[in-house]
């Protein structure tokens, strides 16, 4: 089993191709791999429960983390996050990508 870490930095309302990342993460998960999506920079705008985004990731069992620094920069509070998305520090991203047999992809 390979571990995949997708790092999504783009605003879903600005970049339609964020949908491609979401679909790829689900497809990789369905093939039996461990998948994490780490939202950072404008990528965290999709983490708000009011957007209704990224539900397919939760349904597929993909771990979704949102960078705390990026959330604070954009005035997004913890209680605004969708229930399947967990607030996280950048050190969690480092821990994830420094594991062996892990592929890290930035978008």
């Amino acid at each position, binding site marked *: 089993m390979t571990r995949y870490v997708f*790092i999504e930095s783009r605003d879903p309302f600005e970049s339609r191709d964020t949908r491609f990342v979401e679909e790829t993460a689900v497809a990789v998960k369905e093939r039996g791999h461990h998948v994490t999506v780490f939202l950072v*920079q404008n990528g965290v705008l999709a983490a708000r429960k009011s957007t209704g985004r990224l539900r397919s990731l939760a349904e597929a069992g993909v771990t979704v983390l949102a960078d705390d620094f990026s959330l604070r920069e954009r005035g997004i509070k913890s209680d605004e996050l969708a229930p399947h998305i967990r607030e996280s520090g*950048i050190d969690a991203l*480092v821990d994830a990508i*420094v594991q062996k047999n*892990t592929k890290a992809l*930035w978008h």
Partner: protein
Amino acid sequence: MNERRLTLALMDPPYESANSTTALRIITAALEKGIDVNVFAYEGAVCLPLQDQAPHANPVKGTTVEEEQHPTTKAFVSSLLAMGQGKPLLTWVNCGLCVDERGAANVVAGVKRGSPADFFKMASDSTNTLVIPTR
């Protein structure tokens, strides 16, 4: 030899993209965890450690240089190189061709000059490699 080593390829020039801030945060967190870090700065990213950067006052607000405390990326890079002098080790390589194109040879102490061949070697010797491209 440290068993955990991370290589990052950076491409964004300073003061243009949040990518630079995130990259510097990742490097900081990795060093704090005792992880060796290689950085290959490509294209505009070779200007991140440019020695000629200078903090400035803000004439709109009427603040002085001291009051403004304007952060420069060269100061961040210097701080990281100070953190990563041994264990853990930070190796920062600027792409030589990118440097020459930009006239960006005057960099802070500790930054090396190299080529994409160095990036290949860094990636080959690392636990993982993260490429942070320009958009």
